[in-house]
Every structure is written in C-alpha cells, then in structure tokens.
C-alpha cells in the first residue's frame, strides 16, 4: 500500500497539539487517521463506506464459529 500523505490541516488531527479537541479525542482512544480518511470522502461516499463496514461486521459474525472456548478447555 502507498504511504498516506497528510496535508498540514489534516496533521492537526493526526498529530494534535496539546489542549485541543483533537488531542482529547486521541487520548480518548479515537483513531483520527480514520476520521481524516472519512473527511476526504463526500457525504454519499461516507454512507457507502459505513454500509460496507456494517456489512463486513455482519458477515464476520455470521461466519464465526467457536471451535472451543477458553473457559471450557481442560488445562
């Protein structure tokens, strides 16, 4: 994959200054590189992206089969 090049404005989210809302979000655990990727899209593309993500999670859940559970395995 190609390396992502961020603009100066985008860098304020990727590498926020202390005391900013972006820094608070990062410290809260938000991956703001995903936010930047989303902000590059149109509103319609953002919704299509959301639908794809939700569909992928749904398919994963559907295909998931537990082989065994740690709590049930005998040591």
């Amino acid at each position, binding site marked *: 994959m190609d390396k992502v090049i961020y603009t100066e*404005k985008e860098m*304020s*989210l990727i590498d*926020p200054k202390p005391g*900013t*809302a*972006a820094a*608070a*979000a990062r410290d*809260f*655990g*938000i*991956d*703001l590189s*995903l*936010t930047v*990727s*989303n*902000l590059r899209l149109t*509103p*319609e593309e*953002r*919704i*299509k*992206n*959301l*639908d794809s*993500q*939700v*569909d992928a*999670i*749904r398919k994963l859940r559907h295909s998931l089969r537990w082989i065994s559970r740690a709590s049930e395995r005998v040591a």
Partner: protein
Amino acid sequence: MKDVERQIELISEFQIECVLVGGVAATVHGSSIPTQDLDICYSRNNANLAKVIRALRAANATLRGAPKDLPFILDEETLRRGLNFTFDTDAGKLDLLGEVLGVGGYDKCVEHADEAEIFGSRHYVLSLEKLIASKRAAGRPKDLLALVELEAILEHRRASESKAPESQ
C-alpha cells in the same frame, strides 16, 4: 447489503419530511464510528405521518425490541399517540424520533440543519454543532465516544474555514 443507502432512498421515494440525526448524521459529517441504525427526526404533521406510514408498510416494518405478542397497529394514530419508535425494516433498523435531546422537535432540527445531496436527493442533516449538543445531552457512554470525535471534527472544520481565505 446497503441498509442506510436503502433507507435514505426510502425517505426520498416517499418524500418524508425529516432530518437525519444520530450516528448516520455523524457519519455524514465525517465521523468514523460505525452505526447500524438510521435515526430520523420526523415532522409530525398529518400529511407527513401518512407518508411515514406508507414507507414503513412498504418496508415491512415491525417494532424492534418489543415482545412479539405486544399489540401494535402500524397506522397514523399510533404515531400520533407516541413520539419515538424503533423499527426493524426490510431496509434495516430505522428509528423515528419526534424530538432530539438537546435540540427539540422537527422544526428546531430543520432550523439547525445542513443540506446534503445524498443518492440523488437533497436531505436535511442535523448540523455538527447541534449533533454535538444532542450527544452531550444524551450522555450515554456511546454518545461520549462519538462526542469527542465530533468535537475534533468541528475544531478541524473551524480551523480550515478560518485558514481558507489566506490560501486563496
């Protein structure tokens, strides 16, 4: 599956007067946090209630999270007697809100809405500022998670707007 896309097309097809709010509105503003349902704040005038009912029937809507034996008639009178409803539909999970916490009803939401062209139609989307107010008012853990990202997006947007004239 394109749940949100299909739901938005349903809104367009039946010309429902509503404002996109909640997680999908956050997505439209740039949030990366996934959501599985579409929340709309709908106009409660009689003509719109009729449109909403036609759309819900066309999408085979059933009440979500309610006991199967709970008597429920999907008609305008039911909507009139209630305010907020959660539905499962052929097009996914759809939540109807008569009011949005921290903002108000449909008229207030429209007053504070942006317009976006989505899938060939224009739709009202609750403004980022009011979306933040609604998340703050709701105050659930998932709202707080969304809140911090939305505040970062707002800060980024304001910085971009204030820098824009210099770059021209």
